[in-house]
């Protein structure tokens, strides 16, 4: 049964290899190959899942050793896979949502002549992501970690002919590299501290931790913070969140799969996986929670201001992941809920993105919500599925988001002490804002009058990003229509997930019991009862919705974005984070390199050339002595002879 684990990865990897090297002759069937292999991977996952369910909780960890990867003296890295409940959860999420999105992409990318390569990249991503969650040591995890980075780079920049896309891809990769730096430093620290970086020896299980117990808290804090840096990079947490918004340059399925459902949650996986390290480093945990809290507010605020539907959703993704990180930072209280929210979020956020994609599909790839409106009667399926996802994310009682988010907020309060209160308050506030901006999106898109009819209006402040926007349909009036079956089916499935997943997990704490053996769980001392928290959550949600309705539901939405308050304008510019990067890093870097090039040319090289020149000048002067007249040479010879005679005489004399 263990051997299936390798097949999980092998299937999409094979797909990637075939599709990327296959050449044009595969154009016709490429997308089917990709989808089938993704599906195959999902099937393997399902089989393994069934197998795990068959075992009892203690023996639900399968490992498969393939070969010794980098053996150097003490440094032993193996290619070994580890499938336990945690990775299993991810495997199902990745392959499941992944397969659906493959299916969706068949319709979405229909008119793209490079569709085969698109599917190749998607498969590559699946393989890398599975490697990430199945790796048994941090170095192998690193491979998957950068692999998904590469895939996301390729997919964000899929429409390479657009400079904006290429730049966004580069930005994403670079910011992630900063995070990767953290990961590699963490691995180095582990190696020097423990002499190994495999999960088993280092972490152990939650009831009997491994080598970590022997290390000093300072070291562990260092490792933990480095891991957090990596997580920030991958999961777009403050301060490394700037790339996620630009990443929306990629095709919508990519945004749905990579930048909403799976890859961006890798950071959370990393933290939860390293639970035993974080448990022993409370300071690091505090930092994690702070980062989570800050990001969830940051993302939410950004999400409120964006008129680009995908960017609004990106902000929301950021903030939802903020929730997860916050939960993960809470320690054993929150690990399970972090993962649970991660899964439910995977469903509804993917659904929302697919919905957004379907809307754009029908609206000539227009992304500006101010040019939408009243679309519900034109694309009913999209409306319903999107609406369900919406209800799920704002935490409407009974839907997935409600359960997971509510649990996180409880856990935040349960952290206890002042920080417990602060974090809880942040989480609640975030919930309110979430309700606000999601309602805004909903209203601007599906309700109100049909603003897209007046398409001769000047193009809005937010530049439209999809490629077709430049090519066609800039002034042609769009004809909203429902998307083809291949696109609607995945949306429906995901909608189901976003409605029922949460409930299914929470009834009898199924999810908790499933995951507890890996992460461990403890009920904190909640200062206030769960019921109170739930009530509070619902109320803030209602408040948020009503405010949004008052602003966008009652009054007509202006097509041209109003100037807005200072905060709004800042939020439109991602709270000036990019400007900061631009001024400090980009400009500074350019000047640094310029000056260094100059220095290299003048100083380092100049010294050498200067020496050469001086030698040349000297010899030029010397050669004047060589006037070529035999007689003057004779004089020098004679003089030399005289000197020799003198020398000999002197020697004699002495």
């Amino acid at each position, binding site marked *: 049964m263990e051997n299936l684990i390798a097949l999980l990865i092998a299937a999409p990897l094979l797909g990637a290899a075939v599709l990327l090297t296959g050449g044009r002759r595969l154009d016709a069937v490429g997308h089917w190959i990709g989808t089938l292999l993704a599906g195959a991977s999902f099937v393997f996952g399902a089989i393994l899942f069934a197998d795990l369910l068959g075992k009892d909780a203690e023996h639900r960890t399968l490992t498969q050793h393939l070969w010794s990867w980098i053996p150097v003296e003490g440094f032993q890295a193996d290619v070994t896979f580890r499938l336990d409940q945690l990775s299993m959860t991810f495997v199902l999420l990745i392959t499941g949502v992944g397969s659906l999105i493959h299916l969706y992409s068949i319709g979405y990318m229909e008119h793209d002549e490079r569709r085969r390569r698109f599917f190749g990249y998607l498969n590559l991503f699946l393989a890398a992501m599975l490697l990430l969650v199945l790796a048994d040591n941090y170095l192998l995890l690193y491979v998957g970690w950068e692999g998904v980075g590469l895939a996301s780079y390729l997919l964000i920049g899929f429409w390479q002919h657009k400079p904006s896309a290429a730049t966004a891809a580069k930005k994403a990769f670079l910011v992630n590299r900063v995070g990767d730096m953290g990961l590699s430093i963490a691995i180095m620290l582990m190696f020097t501290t423990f002499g190994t970086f495999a999960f088993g020896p280092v972490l152990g299980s939650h009831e009997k931790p491994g080598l970590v117990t022997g290390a000093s808290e300072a070291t562990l804090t260092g490792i933990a913070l480095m891991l957090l840096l990596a997580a920030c990079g991958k999961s777009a947490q403050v301060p490394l969140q700037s790339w996620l918004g630009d990443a929306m340059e990629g095709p919508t399925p990519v945004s749905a799969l990579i930048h909403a459902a799976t890859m961006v949650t890798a950071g959370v996986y990393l933290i939860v996986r390293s639970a035993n390290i974080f448990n022993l480093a409370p300071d690091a945990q505090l930092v994690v929670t702070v980062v989570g809290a800050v990001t969830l507010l940051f993302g939410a605020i950004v999400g409120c201001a964006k008129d680009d539907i995908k960017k609004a959703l990106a902000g929301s993704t950021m903030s939802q992941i903020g929730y997860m990180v916050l939960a993960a930072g809470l320690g054993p209280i929150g690990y399970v809920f972090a993962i649970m929210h991660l899964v439910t979020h995977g469903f509804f956020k993917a659904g929302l993105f697919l919905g957004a994609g379907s809307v754009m599909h029908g609206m000539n790839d227009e992304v500006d919500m101010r040019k939408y409106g009243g679309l519900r009667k034109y694309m009913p399926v999209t409306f319903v599925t999107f609406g369900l996802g919406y209800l799920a994310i704002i935490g409407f009682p009974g839907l997935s988001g409600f359960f997971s988010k509510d649990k996180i907020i409880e856990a935040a309060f349960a952290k206890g002490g002042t920080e417990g209160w602060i974090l809880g308050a942040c989480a609640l506030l975030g919930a309110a804002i979430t309700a606000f901006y999601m309602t805004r999106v909903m209203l601007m898109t599906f309700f109100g009058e049909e603003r897209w009819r007046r398409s001769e209006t000047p193009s809005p402040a937010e530049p439209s990003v999809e490629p077709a926007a430049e090519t066609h349909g800039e002034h042609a009036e769009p004809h909203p229509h429902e998307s083809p079956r291949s696109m609607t089916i995945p949306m429906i499935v995901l909608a189901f997930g976003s409605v029922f997943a949460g409930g299914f997990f929470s009834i009898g704490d199924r999810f908790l019991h499933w995951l507890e053996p890996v992460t461990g769980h403890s009920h904190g001392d909640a200062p206030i009862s769960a019921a109170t928290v739930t009530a509070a959550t619902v109320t803030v949600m209602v408040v948020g919705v009503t405010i949004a309705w008052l602003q966008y539901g009652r009054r007509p939405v202006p097509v041209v974005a109003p100037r807005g308050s200072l905060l709004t304008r800042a939020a439109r510019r991602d709270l000036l984070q990019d400007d900061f990067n631009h001024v400090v890093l980009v400009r500074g870097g350019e000047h640094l390199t310029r000056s260094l090039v100059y220095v290299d040319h003048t100083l380092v090289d100049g010294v050498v050339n200067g020496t050469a020149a001086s030698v040349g000048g000297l010899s030029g002067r010397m*050669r004047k002595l060589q006037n070529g007249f*035999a*007689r003057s040479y004779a*004089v020098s010879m*004679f003089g030399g002879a005289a000197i020799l005679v003198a020398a000999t005489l002197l020697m004699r004399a002495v």
Partner: protein
Amino acid sequence: MNPVNYLYLAALLFTIGATGVLIRRNAIVVFMCIELMLNACNLAFVAFSRMHGNLDGQIIAFFTMVVAAAEVVVGLAIIVSLFRSRHSASVDDASLMKL
């Protein structure tokens, strides 16, 4: 008188010859100066052989003469062909030794 004076004389002649080599431009004259130097050496050898009371010095002088003869023959031949090629016997005209 002390026969050492012969040696002084030889030294004097040698110096004069050497100086001549340095200051004359005409190749032939330069050559003569060289001969002068050789003769000075010969005189020294002869004087030395008298001093040591054996004939080796004279032998050396003799060989010197022979070699000098050979050298003169070749040297003069060179001068002649030089003169043919550039219509001058000046040493300075052959200043091609610099770049």
